[in-house]
């Protein structure tokens, strides 16, 4: 009897103690017939009632019925503001102070200005490559603002606004894009592969979705360290198709990790529209399949993003479980400077989002209606932010590139002897053939 009670506590009230009893009998070399009659009868009938499978907690059904995936009426999209920047349900207003909301606005617009200038600079051959964030600034800033500064960020490549919100200097954005001596990444990677240790932003890598299981591991370590820290992991709806995404979700749920999975569903993975990326109800619908709390939000509504991220953060840390936020948005720009999206989508479609549903415009309408911003300030800020960006840009361009000897360091923590030999061989080669190399642009 005591066995049955303790078994029920272990497995929950719905599971029967029958399997445990049978195992105990077997272990003692007894058979069911040696049990008192009342227990024999109870077991036999209770075996009929409920499923005993270890793999699922569910009832039986005797009608053949397939579950219909619901994609016509999918998971609803949480929003706080309408497209004109007006709060719809006052109880959802986060009531953020003016300076904080102004910081949202200035981060998004400064990012937008930097994007325009750096995109242009690639067109002019000054930097090799660039990716803009047009239309997705709300997803970056709304989520970044809801985190602590020490929360660890794993990104994909279109989250520069998170760094912008954390006050990453323009000089360092530019340094990475130009690969100049000031680049903390030592010129190793293509532009927009930012990283910042002090701001807890893990360096971006090109392979997609690889950051997802890594973020889960980092969250596990944070949980063990009692750090009261959440990890946020950004990825696009395209990257969510990768095996690493499945791996990350499953590990986060089974290992109970304090992590926020933040999916930027912007409608396209380069040229591939979502109709060719998945057939289910987006990414949010996958969360419950893993046992993950999930929500879909209007990614162009910075307050909705903020509220969802804030609540997810609070609960992820308190309850040690993952949260999935799918932020619906639209990629207004091309995938990158190597892409011309007019090849696969209409200019009208892009214009709609640019003019009718842009996170920056919606927040500006909100600010104007509150009297926290006006046309004068807008003009002054545009001029000032453009000036800041241009100054940083011009300085970045003038700087030298790092010394070619830095080609060889950091492969391992210590340089192996064979690699040092290769480094010396390049140095000797440059002594003889240096004129054929752009040494003038590089630091000694």
């Amino acid at each position: 009897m005591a066995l049955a009670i303790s078994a029920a506590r272990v497995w929950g009230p719905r599971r029967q103690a029958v399997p445990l009893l049978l195992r105990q009998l077997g272990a003692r070399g007894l058979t069911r017939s040696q049990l008192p009659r009342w227990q024999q009868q109870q077991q036999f009938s209770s075996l009929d009632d409920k499923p005993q499978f270890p793999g699922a907690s569910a009832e039986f059904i005797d009608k053949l019925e397939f579950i219909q995936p619901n994609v016509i009426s999918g998971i609803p999209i949480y929003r706080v503001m309408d497209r004109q920047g007006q709060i719809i349900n006052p109880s959802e207003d986060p009531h953020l102070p003016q300076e904080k909301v102004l910081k949202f606005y200035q981060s998004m617009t400064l990012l937008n200005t930097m994007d325009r200038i750096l995109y242009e600079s690639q067109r002019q051959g000054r930097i090799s490559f660039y990716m803009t964030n047009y239309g997705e600034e709300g997803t970056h800033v709304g989520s970044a603002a809801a985190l602590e500064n020490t929360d660890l960020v794993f990104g994909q490549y279109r989250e520069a606004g998170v760094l912008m919100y954390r006050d990453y200097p323009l000089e360092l954005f530019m340094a990475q894009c130009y690969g100049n001596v000031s680049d903390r990444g030592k010129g190793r990677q293509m532009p927009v592969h930012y990283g910042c240790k002090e701001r807890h932003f893990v360096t971006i890598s090109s392979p997609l979705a690889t950051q997802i299981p890594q973020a889960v591991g980092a969250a596990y370590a944070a949980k063990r360290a009692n750090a009261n820290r959440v990890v946020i992991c950004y990825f696009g709806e395209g990257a969510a198709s990768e095996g690493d995404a499945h791996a990350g979700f499953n590990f986060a749920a089974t290992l109970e990790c304090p992590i926020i999975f933040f999916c930027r569903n912007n409608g396209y993975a380069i040229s591939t529209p979502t109709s060719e990326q998945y057939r289910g109800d987006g990414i949010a619908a996958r969360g419950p399949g893993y046992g993950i709390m999930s929500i879909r939000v209007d990614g162009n509504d910075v307050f909705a993003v903020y509220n969802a991220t804030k609540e997810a953060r609070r609960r992820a840390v308190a309850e040690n479980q993952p949260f999935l936020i799918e932020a619906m948005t639209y990629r207004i720009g091309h995938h990158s400077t190597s892409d011309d999206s007019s090849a696969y989508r209409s200019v009208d479609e892009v214009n709609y989002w640019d003019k009718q549903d842009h996170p920056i415009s919606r927040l500006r309408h909100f600010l104007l209606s509150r009297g926290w911003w006006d046309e004068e300030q807008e003009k002054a800020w545009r001029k000032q932010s453009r000036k800041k960006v241009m100054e940083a840009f011009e300085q970045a361009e003038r700087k030298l590139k790092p010394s070619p000897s830095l080609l060889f360091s950091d492969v391992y923590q210590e340089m192996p002897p064979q690699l040092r030999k290769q480094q010396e061989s390049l140095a000797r080669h440059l002594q003889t053939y240096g004129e054929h190399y752009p040494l003038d642009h590089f630091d000694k």
Partner: protein
Amino acid sequence: MAAVSVTAGRLLRLRAAGAEGYWRRLRGTGLARSFLQPASAGEDAAQTRQVAHFTFQPDPETREYGQTQKMNLFQSITSALDNSLAKDPTAVIFGEDVAFGGVFRCTVGLRDKYGKDRVFNTPLCEQGIVGFGIGIAVTGATAIAEIQFADYIFPAFDQIVNEAAKYRYRSGDLFNCGSLTIRSPWGCVGHGALYHSQSPEAFFAHCPGIKVVIPRSPFQAKGLLLSCIEDKNPCIFFEPKILYRAAVEQVPVEPYNIPLSQAEVIQEGSDVTLVAWGTQVHVIREVAAMAQEKLGVSCEIIDLRTIIPWDVDTVCKSVIKTGRLLISHEAPLTGGFASEISSTVQEECFLNLEAPISRVCGYDTPFPHIFEPFYIPDKWKCYDALRKMINY
């Protein structure tokens, strides 16, 4: 006919007793011989002592690190893991089935001793295991990941090659995953076939940023594994599974380190250099004994131990002395790590070579099941190659 059915019956009873030593018992029944020579069916062959293609040779006990205990390979691994978790409160062990002790018993007792948050199962997903391990290491904690068989490491190849190996370099040393170690059973085991026998070290040798280490014995394994765990770079530690129970040695109970990227000359010689790693070291040891006895040839035996970054100097120094080099590994010949050693040695020691460098390796096929005794680079193939080199 009756004799065949008698031997068949004996064979079936022996099979019921267990698959281990299958070939030994098979030979004992005379059935294999009757397959090869039908005319002599029914004669019993003498039972041979050896179950495998090698004889494990323990190293002499060392007193250098304090009290020792008799341990086999899996126990020496457990000991290293135990020491690590005791010293380093951030260290965690994870992978498929590690919680109950592991399919090769390497993690027995550790969950009870250190807790379920430190020794835990993950879902069945190698790319997840390695990605997750990288993430732990990025925060500075020590991650010890297990991949159940080296044959299954390939789903994690992207995470290892594109992520772990490049983490420090691509971030300009802002971030790294140096405290990640991946352990995995490796190499032939007598019956493993395509997917339980592979030696994939060559795939990873081509990847700057990681270290790949393979021990030949319990004493070596513990010291090398501890070095991998403490090393500030992501490491892959391949454990020769055929040695898990077969290799028994006196191993220090306390932690100790054997340096990485240092090959060991385990026997000095003057006429030919033999290089191998893992199980194959024991094969070439026997080959050296055969060469001495039958040919009067003195062999210098080197256990490479670390595949990358590898100890070029020790190997070259030896070849400069002997003038002849034979490298042997189970992995297929083409693109196997012997080709890297061969290429480097001919560059550095060209004028010292008396004969072409010899590679005795697995064939360029997947690892077969029933044909394993013909596939592996056994002592006869190595001996034959050595003889040809001497007579060149």
